[in-house]
């Protein structure tokens, strides 16, 4: 007996021998369940991520079993930990090396806002240098919080229009970060 769960098909028109729906929804569905994360872990939030990847919380349940340690094959950049200003060009380079479509999750207080490190040497949130889709609060956030943030990313991916990455609005947003 199998108890494997599979996702429901997106809404569409069904009949004998055919099923019609929009391509965006099918691609969104597929992408959202096969996101390859790139863990950019610099400190204690990275330890929580290790727990998240472990068997107890099992990140693999969401189609993210395969971590990508090359930015070129990754869909989701997970920034976990304090980013010093000296590190910021490295982080930006990693983001630039990722292929579109790409998403970014800021995990923890430091990546989101600088956290307790309100000082001249620490970047006050990675959104000063790259666009961020989801922020996960916590110092460090528990694995449940990271999973919740990942769920929010999946929601964004599932509902993203196929044309979003070509829109003027998206280009302008990237241009405001000095990208392209």
């Amino acid at each position: 007996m199998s108890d494997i769960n599979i996702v429901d098909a997106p809404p569409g028109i069904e009949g004998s021998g055919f099923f019609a729906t929009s391509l965006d929804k099918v691609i969104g569905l597929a992408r959202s369940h096969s996101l390859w994360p790139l863990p950019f872990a610099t400190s204690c939030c990275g330890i929580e991520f290790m727990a998240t990847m472990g068997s107890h919380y099992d990140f693999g349940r969401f189609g993210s079993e395969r971590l990508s340690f090359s930015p070129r094959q990754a869909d989701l950049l997970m920034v976990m930990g304090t980013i010093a200003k000296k590190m910021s060009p490295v982080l930006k380079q990693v983001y630039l090396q990722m292929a579109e479509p790409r998403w970014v999750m800021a995990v923890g207080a430091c990546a989101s806002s600088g956290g307790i490190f309100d000082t001249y040497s620490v970047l006050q949130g990675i959104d000063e240098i790259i666009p961020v889709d989801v922020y996960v609060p916590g110092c460090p956030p528990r694995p449940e919080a990271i999973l919740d943030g990942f769920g929010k990313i999946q929601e964004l991916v599932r509902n993203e229009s196929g044309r979003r990455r070509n829109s003027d609005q998206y280009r302008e947003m990237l241009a405001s970060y000095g990208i392209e």
Partner: protein
Amino acid sequence: MAELTNNDVIALLNDKFGDRVGNISEPYGLLTVETATDVIIDVLGFLKNEAGAGFNFLTDITAVHYPEKSSIAVVYHLHNMVEKIRVRIKVFINEHVPNIPTATVLWNGANWMERETYDFFGVKFQGHPNLIRILNMDELDVHPMLKQYPLEDPNRVDKKDEYFGR
């Protein structure tokens, strides 16, 4: 052989340098002396190489900024690993002319310590082979531990005074 004590070190320094080494104190038992830029390398070299002193290990070089005195204290920590005693040597220099000779002629380990002190305090170690920033990003245009510069990052938006009752 008797153990080397702070008093022995004081006597050695007084014999060799007289009043060029002064303001001797022993806070928490740590012998602390002050000297000047023109003899600092001689003092360090003497403490390192003199048979009776034997401070062979340079523990640290750092600095302290005293804006009210317009001066920067460059601080050297030496350790005699055989006799298990330490000494601290301070040199007060003008904050507007922060020059001091390099200790890399005595210890190669002084190289990074002096780069760090330059990075944070702007102390220029004359004769250092590669005096560039070591920890902060290269684009930083100040020496951040000097007290005229704020500790906090001005880009921070969530730490508004009203949230803290200020």
